[in-house]
């Protein structure tokens, strides 16, 4: 595959490094020093130029490209790059944006801006923070269909109330599907009569809320949060963390110093208590009992302030701290001095793009059990073998065993049951063994 990457910042370089092993990578970058650096440092072709200009794209041989990744630090540039590419070539375009407004427009009409796949830095960073915050009992968790569907993997312990139950007995949730059981390194596709044993690993797919409820049942003692979440900083990331947590039924407090921004946040987040103050005010931290919180998420605009806020909160008693760290080289350092988890938004987005490019046609992929199985998100069209008959029938026309875990239709969650009919345009989240993944992907 020939891949063009526009913008060689941290994200672009990271993706280029990952893809260069298996693909032909061309980088378009304005800064001549960076171009030189990349040409010597990586096994890629770096071209100097402005990615929004046709001449630069043509120099990179855009008509021959299979995929163009627009990953500059500027949203509008990335969108214009995608549109320009679409004007002259059939390449699959991926654009990285920060602003979620663009993402929302694109989600409404997947043809918008000439972008085939859009990744939103802030939203991805927030999702990855929420994963860390939200499900301590889960071994792994991933989001699909714009956050409406979640896949999670749980250990079934000796003391778990569902050990010894059959799948049918344990399945008391409307919007949850038991996708797989991993037992002794073997993958089982469960039926209603399959018995769940202690020591099994369960892969479930469902709405975030039902997954959370299930987490409470499968491991009542360590199930998710017992305490409260405090978010420091109402940046885009802080806002999305609060929003995603409240979607999951976790209420949080959010501290924002700027009065206008605080007011906006309070309007947008009805379930979140917004506090307008400086989070480094120790008197305030004590008065509002911030120390009693279980997790503090620092999402201020500066790495240093995030470090300070996290350390102060831990000093007054907060158990766990998660901080957004913009400079990737600080991550290790901050984790060494006391922050429990550092999240670097650029790293998150680079991982997402790489994962996507590897997955081929699927919208989103998650690897389960070190690659034993995959969870794919696919948008089905009229020609898909899944369309037109109930799942009970259509599932047999696929080349391998799959489990339809969830369906997202016009932004609504649809519970997949035997009689459900999949419609064109639906986003289907399915579970498949890795060895069959390519066959299934191709068939869909």
């Amino acid at each position: 595959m020939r891949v063009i990457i526009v913008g060689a910042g941290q994200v672009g370089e990271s993706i280029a490094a990952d893809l260069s092993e298996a693909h032909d990578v061309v980088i378009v970058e304005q800064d001549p020093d960076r171009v030189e650096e990349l040409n010597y440092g990586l096994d890629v072709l770096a071209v100097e130029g402005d990615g929004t200009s046709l001449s630069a794209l043509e120099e990179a041989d855009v008509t021959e490209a299979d995929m163009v990744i627009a990953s500059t630090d500027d949203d509008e540039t990335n969108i214009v790059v995608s549109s320009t590419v679409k004007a002259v070539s059939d390449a699959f375009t991926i654009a990285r944006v920060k602003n979620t407004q663009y993402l929302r427009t694109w989600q409404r009409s997947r043809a918008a801006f000439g972008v085939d796949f859009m990744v939103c830095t802030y939203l991805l960073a927030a999702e990855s923070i929420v994963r860390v915050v939200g499900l301590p009992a889960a071994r792994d968790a991933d989001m699909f269909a714009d956050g409406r569907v979640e896949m999670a993997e749980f250990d079934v312990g000796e003391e778990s109330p569902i050990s010894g139950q059959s799948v049918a007995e344990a399945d008391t949730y409307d919007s949850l599907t038991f996708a797989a059981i991993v037992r002794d390194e073997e993958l089982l596709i469960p039926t209603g009569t399959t018995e769940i044993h202690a020591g099994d690993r369960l892969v479930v797919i469902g709405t975030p809320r039902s997954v959370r409820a299930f987490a409470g049942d499968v491991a009542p003692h360590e199930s998710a949060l017992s305490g409260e979440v405090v978010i420091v900083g109402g940046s885009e990331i802080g806002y999305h963390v609060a929003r995603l947590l409240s979607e999951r039924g976790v209420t949080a407090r959010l501290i924002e110093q700027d009065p206008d921004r605080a007011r906006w946040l309070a309007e947008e987040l009805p379930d979140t208590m917004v506090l307008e103050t400086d989070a480094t005010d120790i008197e305030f931290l004590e008065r509002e009992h911030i120390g009693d919180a279980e997790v503090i998420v620092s999402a201020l605009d500066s790495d240093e302030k995030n470090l300070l806020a996290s350390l102060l909160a831990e000093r007054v008693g907060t158990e766990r701290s998660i901080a957004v760290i913009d400079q990737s080289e600080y991550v290790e350092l901050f984790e060494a001095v006391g922050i429990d988890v550092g999240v670097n938004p650029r790293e998150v987005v680079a991982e997402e793009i790489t994962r996507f490019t590897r997955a081929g046609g699927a919208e989103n992929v998650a690897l389960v059990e070190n690659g034993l199985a995959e969870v794919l998100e696919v948008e089905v069209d009229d020609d898909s073998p899944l369309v037109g008959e109930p799942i009970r029938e259509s599932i047999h026309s696929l080349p391998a065993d799959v489990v339809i875990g969830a369906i997202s239709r016009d932004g609504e969650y649809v519970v997949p049951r035997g009689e459900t009919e999949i419609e064109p345009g639906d986003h289907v989240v399915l579970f498949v063994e890795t060895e069959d993944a390519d066959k299934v992907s191709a068939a869909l």
Partner: protein
Amino acid sequence: MSIRVDYRASLSLVGTVLKYLSVPLLLPVVVALYYGETLAPFLPTIAVTLLVGWGLERLAPEPDIAAREGFLMVAATWLAVALVGTIPYLIEAHGIPLLVEPIHPDSTLANPTNALFESMSGFSTTGATVLGSINVVDHTRGVMLWRQLTQWLGGMGIVVLAVAILPELSVGGAQLMDAEAPGPGIEKLTPKIAETARVLWGAYLAITVVEILLLYGLDLAGMAGPNMNAYNAVAHGLTTMPTGGFSPQARSIEAFSAAVQWVIIPFMVIAGTNFALIWQAVAGSPRELLEDTEFRGYLGAMAVLTAILTGLLFTGGFASGVPEGATFDAAYLSETAAAITGNLEPALRHALFQAVSIVTTTGYASMDFDVWGAPAKYALLFAMFVGGSAGSTGGSVKVIRWIVVAKVLRRELFTTAHPEAVRPVRLGGNALDDRATRGIMSFTLLYLSMFFIGAFVLFLDAARAGVDFTVLEVISGTASTLGNVGPAFYRLGPMGGYLRFPDSSKLFMVVLMWAGRLEILPLLVCLTPEYWRR
């Protein structure tokens, strides 16, 4: 450019509205012709509206209305139409010297103050009356219909009607409607304001016609009791939808069957509902109506009040004796108490009817609720302060404001414990900005202040004139006129009237009704020096 108020432009538009008032005056003319009555009360009125209207219009040939002029125009329009509205009453009582003999010389409306009170009560949709006898024998059918028509015109708003039909108001129209329409702010249903005004009036007219047909249908089916006929069906249609309450029957809705009472209840509920919501519900999204915070609060307020009243009536919540100044006798008391106590249907019907009638500020009575015991009466007194929904024809404070007041107070309590918390006041998912909440808090406080001052002034005036009123009479009378409800308690009860107040008190109540209909501010603002200053 001067920022002085262009009062000529305002008055010129008042003139235009007056001129067009001659058109609805043709309706009582038709009625008088049909019943073979004299046209004397109306032809001079039509002449006056045309002449005065034309004269005022000449003050400014091309009136340009801005926000400031809007307040004056709206306030003055309501006074002007109320003044013109007195003419048929005065002619009926006095005749026209040398030309027409007095028709009903013993009418209490012979007194110009009484005539003005009745006219303002009509246009402001209050429904408080100073008529000595309410029937179509002591007054002509034409004049009684005029009395009901004033309410119908006042209900959806004369100025809204003007915006709907006068092309010259296409620019300042939104400001005018805002100054007149009940509730905080107006909702533009369509891009053009005149179109919005036409939609509102069209819906108002359509629902009125439906009610008239239903009432007359009940009569044709023989289910309406002895008194309903085409005339009464029209009269009640014209006074239900504006939440007015002027019935041509002295015994109000008690004169009709239980079926009529049940039919009128939903129409009062609709009249107290935001017409913009009704329009949207009919145009395709009824869910919006059911999910509307104010509509739910409005239904809730009526449901709670109905539950309380039903319980009280069912268990015999009637006055133990006839108090001094009551409008009923011992026989009526024992008869109604016996009919209702322990009987669920009449207890529920009268409780629901009265709860809806008072909350929507219609003021109809399905029975003389003055016979009810103190707890039930006080419940109704409090209900006078609730009012209908914003954008309805209902008066008083309005449900939406009470909801916001409650939410603001709750927020204050919360921020006392958490001083840094930012809590916008939310209505149905939308956050209100602080200016809007401040406006609503100020209005509510202003309304209550106006009520206390009003009651105090009426006490003083009654004492000065040597008329003895009970405390409940004065308080309920103030709440009722300011809130455009109509009936109050004891001698001001649904079967009584405001006749015994001294003229000075009646004039003061004219101001209360005027201010209440315009929601105080447009009138009050015209009285401040800042308004007139350059």
